[in-house]
Structures are given as structure tokens and as C-alpha cells.
């Protein structure tokens, strides 16, 4: 956890078990003593850069022991680190840095140390954004706005420690844990599979971001390092289970991010015969909110998202005759949650009024509006039904198809565009765009993909494009009939 408690635990591990492996990366073992040495090299560069007292620092999440060390060093100096995806474009990155009131960026250097730079940014970009307070939070995560600039979510130190306590007990994390870190360091999943594991004195096996689609690489990595904890989107579990691979050392399997197929579940049961299985549900704003333990001999599919985690309060909102009301008993409504792990709000103050609201039953606790449509059955189990808006998950990343449509529609040669999510055997969900081109223009589907790739993050770029000359089918209210487009695609009637 990015908290003083994590740093104390780390110092203790360096003293008590210096030769234990803290990280494995690219075939290299980094002991706790090695990681401590890297942390001191990074700290020296932070001190020596001549920028005076630093309160906020942008550290792009290049996955490496040096970046882990740089973050530890910054936290030790009481600096709030903004950790964005290293794949963000330079324009988006510089906007984010400005919004977080941190003109300084630091990139870890292979072998140890860091290079600091000061961004020349437009200070008015920070208008309306709170400055992150290192007293309250040492880490600012980003959530994938599917277009443009991500949202800034500070993670409270005390919320982190509470999450660490819960996860450590729930998933049996200790000094013998060896976790596979599959997702990027900027994802909230790293709070469990990197930071909680390091706090416990375990080993984190960092999967190379560039080889994340490679089943053979992941299998070798997991088997040769005797991984015990695997957390990730269904895609990861599917890759691991390919070719009937077996992982006798895995004790804990955590599904997260999106719904797992029944075949995916069965393959995971077979691949990890000694493991306990869990499904967790949450988002960056609240961290995990629901957990479901999965018994391979007695499970239901689709899986429930489970029951609220201890300390989590969940409310379903419905539209009643007199406006919005709280659903009592079984039924379906929009999920609102309050968790012990949640953020104190986006840095952008204007966003908070829509996303957070006080307990609708009365009381002061702040609830996060998830936008998830959830069904509660008579036994109090919760099932995800979909979204109240246009959000889907593509490779575990929240993506708003309406926003993708807006970007495609902004192309000068496009008359209208509709984007639908289709099931995909590899990635779970993929996006398809149906686009009407302006008469007499030469826009091609390749041209449109190249345009989309320039203006959208990779996960939000449609993986197939249909160019039509006739208007898109419409609903009675004149909106693109996305259901009809989806059906046409699913039936292969292209």
C-alpha cells in the first residue's frame, strides 16, 4: 500500500530478509536488499534534481523494478505520485500533469535512479481541480475515460491500509505469496498484486507489458516462479489455461474486471487444481466492493457479483412514481456503494456532484453512483445486469461506446456512426463501428481506423469497421438502432 505502513513494512523486510526475492522482472530476481538499493538511487535523484520541496510528481507507469523503487522513494519523501499509463499521448499526459498541480515528471532509469523534468504547462488547466494532498493520499490513480484525458482519483492512505488488511486476510497473503502482476502498474489491481504483496514481504512477478497476449510466455513465467496468486481479467485466466497448462502452486485465483464465461471458469478450475477461486467486483473510485467465493463443485453461472465486502454498504436506486427511490427487497436498480476503501473524490471538483451523493436513506456517508444496473435476489445476492449508460468493458478497461461514436462522428467525412460491443472469443468484448460516409468522399475503413487510433486510447479503437452508404437503421425516437446493428453483426449477416 502506498502508505507509511507499507514503507515501514518494506524497511522491516529489507532488514529481516534482505535476500528474499521482492520482484522478478525479465528473468532478473530483485531481492529486498536490491530493491532498497534502487530506492536509495531514486531518492538521491529526487533530492538532487534541484526542484526544492516536491509535493506532487507524475511517474508514468513503465513496468519495471526501477519504477517500483521510484514510487517507494517518492512516497518515503511524502510526495503524492500521479501514475498514468505510459501509453498516453504526450498531449494527454501533459494535461493530466497540469490538472494534478504537478509540473514535475520523473521517469525511472534502467539500473536505478530517475530523470526529472519540469513540464511547461498552461496553469489554467488546473482551474477547478483540487491539489492532491500528500498528507491524505500518496497515490493518484487514473480511470479510463474512454476518450481524451482520464479522470484523476486520489487514493486515501487510510483507505489503502484498510484495503490491505481486508485483502491480506481474504486472500491469505503473506511472506510466502508469489503473485503474478499481469495488469499495468497504473491499474487499481496493482494495489493488491503489487503493493499488498510487497507489504506482506512476498514476491511480485512482473509480467512484461509487451508480451501480455502471449500464452506461452505467461505460462513459463507463472510456472517457473511458482506463482501462488493470480488476479486478472478473464482474458488472463484464459491465456493461462491454454494448451491444458497446469499450475499446482497456485493457491488463489481472483477474477475481476468483467464477467467470466462458464467455459473460462471450468478451464481455470482445471488449470489450478489446488486453488481457491474468487470473483471481485469494484472500480477505481471505490476499489473492491463485492466478493464472491466460487466453489468449483457448486457454483451458479452467471456468477453473482457476490455480497458486499465487510464495511461496504450497497443501495439500489429505482425510478418510482415520485421520482428516484431506494429499492427494498429483491429487484433491479442502479447500484450505489460506499466502501471502506473509496476515494475522497475526483480532483476535478465539478465531477463529484454527479458521481457521489449522500446516503439516499439519510445519513452522511458518501455513496458512489456506479452506473451499474444490478439485480438483487430474495437471498440478498447481487447480479450484474448491465449499465445504465453506454459503458462496456474492453479487455478490462471501462469504455463508453457513446464517446467513441462522438469521436468517429467528428471525422469530417463521417455523416453518422454507431458503435456496439460484440462478444469476442479472445478479448471477451470487442467494439464494432458502423459508419455512414459522406457522399463523394474517399474515406476508407483503414483511414477511419488510423483516425480513431490517433484520437482514442487503444482499447477504445473499434476492432472492425463497417462502412455504409445508406443511413443507419433508426429506432422510433430517431436514434441509431444499436440493437439491430448488433444483431446483424452477431448473425454474420454483413
Amino acid at each position, binding site marked *: 500500500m502506498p502508505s507509511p505502513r507499507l514503507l515501514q513494512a518494506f524497511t522491516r523486510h529489507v532488514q529481516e530478509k534482505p535476500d528474499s526475492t521482492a520482484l522478478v522482472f525479465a528473468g532478473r530476481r530483485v531481492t529486498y536488499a536490491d530493491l532498497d538499493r534502487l530506492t536509495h538511487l531514486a531518492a538521491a535523484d529526487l533530492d538532487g534534481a534541484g526542484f526544492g520541496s516536491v509535493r506532487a510528481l507524475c511517474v508514468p507507469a513503465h513496468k519495471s523494478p526501477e519504477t517500483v523503487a521510484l514510487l517507494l522513494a517518492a512516497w518515503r519523501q511524502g510526495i503524492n505520485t500521479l501514475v498514468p499509463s505510459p501509453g498516453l499521448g504526450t498531449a494527454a499526459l501533459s494535461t493530466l500533469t497540469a490538472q494534478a498541480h504537478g509540473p514535475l515528471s520523473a521517469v525511472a532509469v534502467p539500473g536505478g535512479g530517475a530523470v526529472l523534468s519540469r513540464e511547461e504547462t498552461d496553469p489554467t488547466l488546473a482551474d477547478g481541480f483540487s491539489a492532491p494532498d500528500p498528507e491524505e493520499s500518496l497515490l493518484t490513480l487514473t480511470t479510463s475515460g474512454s476518450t481524451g484525458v482520464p479522470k484523476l482519483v486520489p487514493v486515501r492512505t487510510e483507505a489503502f491500509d484498510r484495503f490491505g488488511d481486508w485483502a491480506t486476510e481474504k486472500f491469505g497473503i503473506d511472506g510466502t505469496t508469489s503473485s503474478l502482476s499481469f495488469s499495468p502498474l497504473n491499474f487499481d489491481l496493482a494495489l493488491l498484486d503489487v503493493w499488498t504483496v510487497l507489504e506482506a514481504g512476498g514476491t511480485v512477478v512482473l509480467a512484461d507489458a*509487451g508480451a501480455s*497476449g502471449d500464452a506461452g510466455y505467461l505460462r513459463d513465467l507463472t510456472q517457473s516462479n511458482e506463482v501462488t496468486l493470480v488476479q486478472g481479467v478473464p482474458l488472463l485466466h484464459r491465456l493461462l489455461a491454454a494448451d491444458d497448462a497446469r499450475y499446482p502452486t497456485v493457491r488463489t485465483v481472483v477474477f475481476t474486471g468483467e464477467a467470466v464465461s462458464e467455459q473460462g471458469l471450468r478451464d481455470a478450475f482445471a488449470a489450478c487444481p489446488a486453488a481457491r477461486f474468487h470473483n471481485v467486483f469494484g472500480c477505481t473510485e471505490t476499489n473492491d466492493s463485492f466478493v464472491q467465493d466460487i466453489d468449483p463443485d457448486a457454483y451458479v453461472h452467471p456468477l453473482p457479483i457476490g455480497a458486499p465486502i465487510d464495511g461496504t454498504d450497497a443501495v439500489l436506486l429505482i425510478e418510482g412514481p415520485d421520482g428516484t427511490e431506494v429499492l427494498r427487497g429483491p429487484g433491479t436498480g442502479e447500484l450505489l456503494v460506499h466502501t471502506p476503501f473509496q476515494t475522497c473524490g475526483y480532483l476535478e471538483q465539478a465531477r463529484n456532484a454527479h458521481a457521489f451523493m449522500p446516503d439516499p436513506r439519510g445519513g452522511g456517508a458518501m455513496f458512489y453512483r456506479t452506473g451499474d444496473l444490478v439485480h438483487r435476489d430474495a437471498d440478498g445476492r447481487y447480479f450484474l445486469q448491465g449499465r445504465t449508460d453506454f459503458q462496456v468493458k474492453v479487455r478490462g478497461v471501462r469504455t463508453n461506446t457513446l464517446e467513441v461514436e462522438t469521436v468517429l462522428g467528428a471525422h469530417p467525412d463521417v455523416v453518422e456512426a454507431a458503435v456496439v460491443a460484440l462478444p469476442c472469443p479472445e478479448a471477451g468484448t470487442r467494439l464494432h463501428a458502423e459508419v455512414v460516409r459522406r457522399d463523394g468522399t474517399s474515406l*476508407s475503413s*483503414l483511414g477511419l481506423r*488510423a483516425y480513431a487510433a490517433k484520437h482514442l486510447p487503444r482499447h477504445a*479503437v473499434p476492432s472492425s469497421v463497417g*462502412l455504409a452508404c445508406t443511413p443507419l437503421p433508426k429506432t422510433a425516437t430517431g436514434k441509431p438502432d444499436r440493437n439491430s446493428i448488433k444483431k446483424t453483426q452477431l448473425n454474420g449477416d454483413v
Partner: protein
Amino acid sequence: MSTVANDPIRAYIVSEFLAGEDAEDLTDDFDLIESTVVNSLGLVRLISWISETYSIPVDDIPLEPAAYRTLADIRGFVGRAAPAAV
């Protein structure tokens, strides 16, 4: 520009990643990675296809996307690794 008939690499890219789409402007220098026509999963499929089609051991094939950015890059790599094949 090569035609599909004598360009198996182009034919593979079109059938595997651009099925049903107009691929007329898929030029030799079109950036397949940047445009996300080939994503990280697609890259693994592409590499395994190259390995099988041209009998190049997988271990001899670089995993980094930069080696497969364009049709010209792929053709160049295959030409160096399996000169008899192209």
C-alpha cells in the same frame, strides 16, 4: 502495389484482421500497429502464422511490435529470416 495473388503476407493480414472491410488502401507503409489493426493478441497470432508458414523457429522471431509495423517490415523480416521463401 502487390496484388493479393502473389502476396501471401498481405492476403493473411486482410483475411485475418480486415475481413469484410475494404482494404484497397492497405499500402506497404500503412502502420498496422499504430492503427490497432494488429493489437497485442493479433501480434501473437501473426507471429505464430509467420513461424508456421515460413518455418522460422518462434525463438528466432522478435516479439516487439516495431518489427511488424508495416507490410514492408514484415516482408523484410521474413526475407532475412527465410530467404528462400520470399
